[in-house]
C-alpha cells in the first residue's frame, strides 16, 4: 500500500495510509529503543455528548478494557501485560485515545487485541455497573475532593452557555448514574468505527509487515455512517461572570478564563506565547509580581486550551494565607492592560518562544510522545502533518502579534472568575 502522505520528523519519516474501510494508519519507524507505542485515536469526546448523559465518552473508555466476544473479563490487559506491555487511555473534550506501550516483539498481539475490541465489545449489566462505580470514585478523586478540579469544572460550566465544553469530560455525577446499557450500545455503534479512528504506531517496527498485519486484522471491520456534527456556536461574552465557594483550603485559590481560539487558529500560538509571558516561568510577569515581589501567591499558571473549537485562556493562582483573590485579580488586569498597551520588552518574546520549543521537543522524545503528538494533530487539527505547525507559528509571533492578541481576547469584560475561599470559622 502506498502512503497517502508523509512527514519528515527530524531524521525520521511518518507515513499515513488509509484502509478501504476508512481507518487511518500513521506509522513512524523509530528504532532507538526496542519498544512500540500503539495508540488508537477516536474522534469522539465529551463534545459528542448531550445533557443528561454527560460522562458517557469517559465511561466508555473504561468499558473498552472489559469483555469482548472472544476475550473474557480482564483478558485484554492480562495478555498485554504477559508480553511486557502496559495499557492506558484518555478522554477529553474532542477525542478518546487508547494507549499501549509494549516491547516491539508484541506487535501482532496488540493488533489482534485492538482490532477485537473495536468490533466485538460486550456491553451488559455486569460490565457497565462495575465500571460505573469505578468512574464515580474517579470523579470523587479528581473533582469532588480536589479544589483545583472542582474550580476548573466550575470555570468551564460558567464560561460556556451553549457549547458542550460547558460540561466536564468525567460527567456530572447524576448523569454517570443515569447512563443505561442502551446508551452505551448506541454510543459504541455510532462512534467506535474504523472510519472514525486513527491508528498511530511508533517504534522499532517493519513498516510493510506492520501494515500487512493491520490490514488483515482491521480490514474486515465495516465502516459506519457517522453522524453529522452540528454544535452550537458560543455567543460572545459581554460581561464578567463570577462564582465563589467556601472549601477546606488554607487560602484563596482562583481560576480565570477568557474565551480563546481553537488550536488550529493562527492566534493559538500567539496566546501560547502570552501564557508564557504571564505565567510560564519564574521571570514571567505574573509570577514575578505575585510570587516574587509581593508574595501574594505561592503559585501561578497560565495556559490556553488545546481544543478543536475555541476553549479558554486560563490563569490559575494559589494565594498565600491572609490574602484575598481580589488582590491578585487587580494585578492580572493591570499586567494584561500593560501588555496590550506597551507590548513585550525586547527579548521577552524570544525567551518565551525558546521555552515553548524546548517543551515541544522534550514532549516528542519517547516513542509514546511522538505517537501522541501525531495522533493529537490528526484528530484535533485534522492532519498529522500539522504537528510541526506549532514551532513554525511560534517563530512567527512578534511583539505586535502579542499586543493584538491580548487586546482582542483578554479584556476584563470577557473574563469568568471562580474562587475557592477558606471555610468560615463557626
Amino acid at each position, binding site marked *: 500500500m502506498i502512503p497517502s502522505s508523509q512527514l519528515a520528523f527530524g531524521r525520521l519519516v511518518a507515513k499515513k495510509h488509509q484502509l478501504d474501510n476508512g481507518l487511518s494508519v500513521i506509522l513512524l519507524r523509530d528504532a532507538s529503543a526496542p519498544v512500540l507505542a500503539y495508540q488508537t485515536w477516536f474522534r469522539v469526546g465529551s463534545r459528542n455528548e448531550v445533557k443528561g448523559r454527560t460522562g458517557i465518552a469517559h465511561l466508555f473508555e473504561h468499558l473498552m478494557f472489559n469483555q469482548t466476544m472472544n476475550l473474557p473479563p480482564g483478558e485484554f490487559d492480562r495478555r498485554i501485560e504477559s508480553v511486557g506491555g502496559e495499557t492506558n487511555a484518555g478522554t477529553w473534550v474532542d477525542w478518546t485515545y487508547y494507549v499501549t506501550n509494549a516491547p516491539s516483539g508484541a506487535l501482532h498481539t496488540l493488533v489482534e487485541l485492538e482490532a477485537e475490541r473495536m468490533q466485538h465489545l460486550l456491553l451488559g449489566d455486569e460490565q457497565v455497573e462495575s465500571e460505573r462505580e469505578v468512574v464515580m470514585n474517579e470523579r470523587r478523586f479528581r473533582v469532588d*475532593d480536589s479544589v483545583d478540579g472542582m474550580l476548573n469544572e466550575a470555570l468551564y460550566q460558567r464560561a460556556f452557555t451553549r457549547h458542550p465544553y460547558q460540561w466536564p469530560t468525567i460527567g456530572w455525577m447524576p448523569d454517570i448514574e443515569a447512563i443505561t446499557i442502551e446508551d452505551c450500545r448506541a454510543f459504541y455503534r455510532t462512534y467506535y468505527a474504523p472510519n472514525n479512528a486513527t491508528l498511530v504506531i511508533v517504534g522499532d517496527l517493519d513498516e510493510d509487515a506492520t501494515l500487512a498485519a493491520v490490514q488483515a486484522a482491521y480490514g474486515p471491520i465495516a465502516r459506519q455512517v457517522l453522524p453529522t456534527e452540528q454544535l452550537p456556536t458560543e455567543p460572545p461574552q459581554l460581561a464578567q461572570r463570577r462564582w465563589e465557594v467556601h472549601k477546606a483550603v488554607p487560602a484563596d485559590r482562583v481560576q480565570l478564563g477568557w474565551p480563546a481560539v481553537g488550536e488550529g487558529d493562527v492566534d493559538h500560538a500567539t496566546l501560547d506565547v502570552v501564557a508564557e509571558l504571564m505565567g510560564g516561568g519564574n521571570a514571567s510577569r505574573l509570577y514575578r509580581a505575585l510570587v516574587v515581589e509581593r508574595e501574594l501567591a505561592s503559585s501561578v499558571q497560565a495556559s490556553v486550551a488545546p481544543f478543536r473549537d475555541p476553549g479558554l485562556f486560563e490563569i490559575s493562582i494559589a494565594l498565600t494565607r491572609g490574602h484575598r483573590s481580589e488582590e491578585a485579580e487587580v494585578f492580572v488586569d493591570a499586567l494584561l492592560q500593560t501588555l496590550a498597551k506597551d507590548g513585550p520588552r525586547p527579548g521577552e518574546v524570544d525567551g518565551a*518562544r525558546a521555552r515553548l520549543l524546548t517543551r515541544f521537543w522534550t514532549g516528542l522524545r519517547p516513542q509514546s510522545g511522538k505517537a501522541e503528538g501525531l495522533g493529537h494533530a490528526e484528530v484535533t487539527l485534522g492532519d498529522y502533518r500539522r504537528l510541526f505547525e506549532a514551532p513554525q507559528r511560534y517563530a512567527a509571533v512578534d511583539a505586535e502579534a502579542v499586543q493584538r492578541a491580548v487586546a482582542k481576547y483578554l479584556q476584563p469584560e470577557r473574563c469568568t472568575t471562580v474562587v475557592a475561599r477558606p471555610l468560615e470559622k463557626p
Partner: protein
Amino acid sequence: MTEVLVEENHDLPIVRLTAALRTGGADDVPELDGLASFATELMARGAAGRSRMAIDEALDALGAQLTIHTHHDGAQIEITALRDRLDESMALLCDLLLRPDFPVDEADKLRREQLAHLDELREEDSLVAGRFLSSRLFGEHPYGRTLTGTEATLPRLTAEAGRAWHDRAVRAPGVLFAFAGDLDTDAARRLVATYAADLRESDASYSTPYAAPTVRTGTRITLVDKPERTQSQILLGHVAPDWRDPGFDGLLVATHVLGGTFTSRLMDEVRAKRGLSYGAGARLGQGRGAKAFVINVFPSLEQTAETLALVRQLYNDFCKRGITRDELEFARANLRESFAFNLATPEDRLDVRLTSELAGFPPDHLARFPERVAAVSLEVINEALQRLMRPDDLEIVIVTTADELRPALEAAGLLEDATVEVVPYDHD
C-alpha cells in the same frame, strides 16, 4: 576526577544537563529537616553575583527549563535546553552549583514560600497521607524527614545554614555530572572541564547506607481529619527489608503480583470485581537504607470500612499463603519484557544510572534486574513473604472526615486490634 555520565541520542535537538548531589534530604539533621531542599532551591536565588531576577531572565533568554529535585538519597539540579544553547546552559548550571551567593533576603523569602507550599501540599489528600505515613513509619530515622521541612523547622533554615550545607555537599566525589541527548562524551567532558574546573574536593564519604529503623509492633490507625471528604485516601504499610537482604528480589516480584499491574490481585479484587476504588496498588521501596512497603487505595467514604477490611484480608493471605506458580511466571514475564521501558530514552537510561549512583547500589544492580528476577524461585519468594513482611504490624493512615468514618470502622470491628489516633490534616 569528576564523574561524568552520558547517554547520547541525536534524533532531537535537545539536551538535559544534570548536576547530581550524593547528599539528600535524609542527610538533614532532625532539627533542620528540609535543609537540603531549601539549600538547593536557594542556590538558584542568587549566584556568581547575579540576582534571582537576573538568573530567571537568563534562563528565560535561553529558553531553558530548570528543575531542582531533592529526594531522600540525593538531589538533582537539571537544565533542559536546545542543543544550540548548550554552553550557555552549562555555564549557568555551574554558576548555580559552584558559586551560589545565598542572599539573606532571598532566604527569608524562600522560607515564607516554603510555608505557603505546605498549605498547597495539604490540599492534595494523597500527599497528606504520604507525609503522615512516612513520619509514622520512620519517626526520627533519616527516611522520616519530610524533605519540605515543617512549620517547626522552616524558621531555622537560614542563608547561613544553606551555605554550610553547600560547603559539605557540593564537593567531589559528592557531585557527578550527567548528560542526555544531542551531544557526545567528548562534548560532555569538555563542558565539565570548562565550567566545573573549580569544583572543590573532600575526603568525606557520600552515599553511605543508613542504619535500619526501629520497628514498632502492633497495628496503628491514624485518622487524618479533613472536612468535607467524599472519599478516603488510605495508605497502609510497614518498614521493608533492605535491598541487601537475600529475600528482597523475591519480595519485589511478589509485590508486583499483589499490586504492580492493572491485573494484579489488588486491582482485580478492589477495582475490577467490586469497583471500590479507582486505583489500588502496592510498592516496595529501595534506597541507601531500608525503605517502606506501602499499599494505597482510595474508596468513597461510605465504602472505606469495606475496602479497608478487604485490603487487610488480601494482605494477610498474601503474606501467609504466598503467591502461586502461575502468578510467578506471569510476573516474571511482565517484569522481564517491560524492562525495555526503563531504557527507552536517553533520559530514562541516565535516570537508571543516576538512581544506582545516589542510592549506593552496585553499578549493575538495576541493569541486572531482569536476570535477578529470573533467578528467584517460588520457594524463596514465599519464604521471604513469611519471614520479612509484617501484616500484624501495620501503620494505616486514612485521610478522611474522621467523625463520619469512625463509626463505620468501629461497626466493622476494624479498630479492635489497633491503636487509633485522630490528628488534624494541617498538623505536622
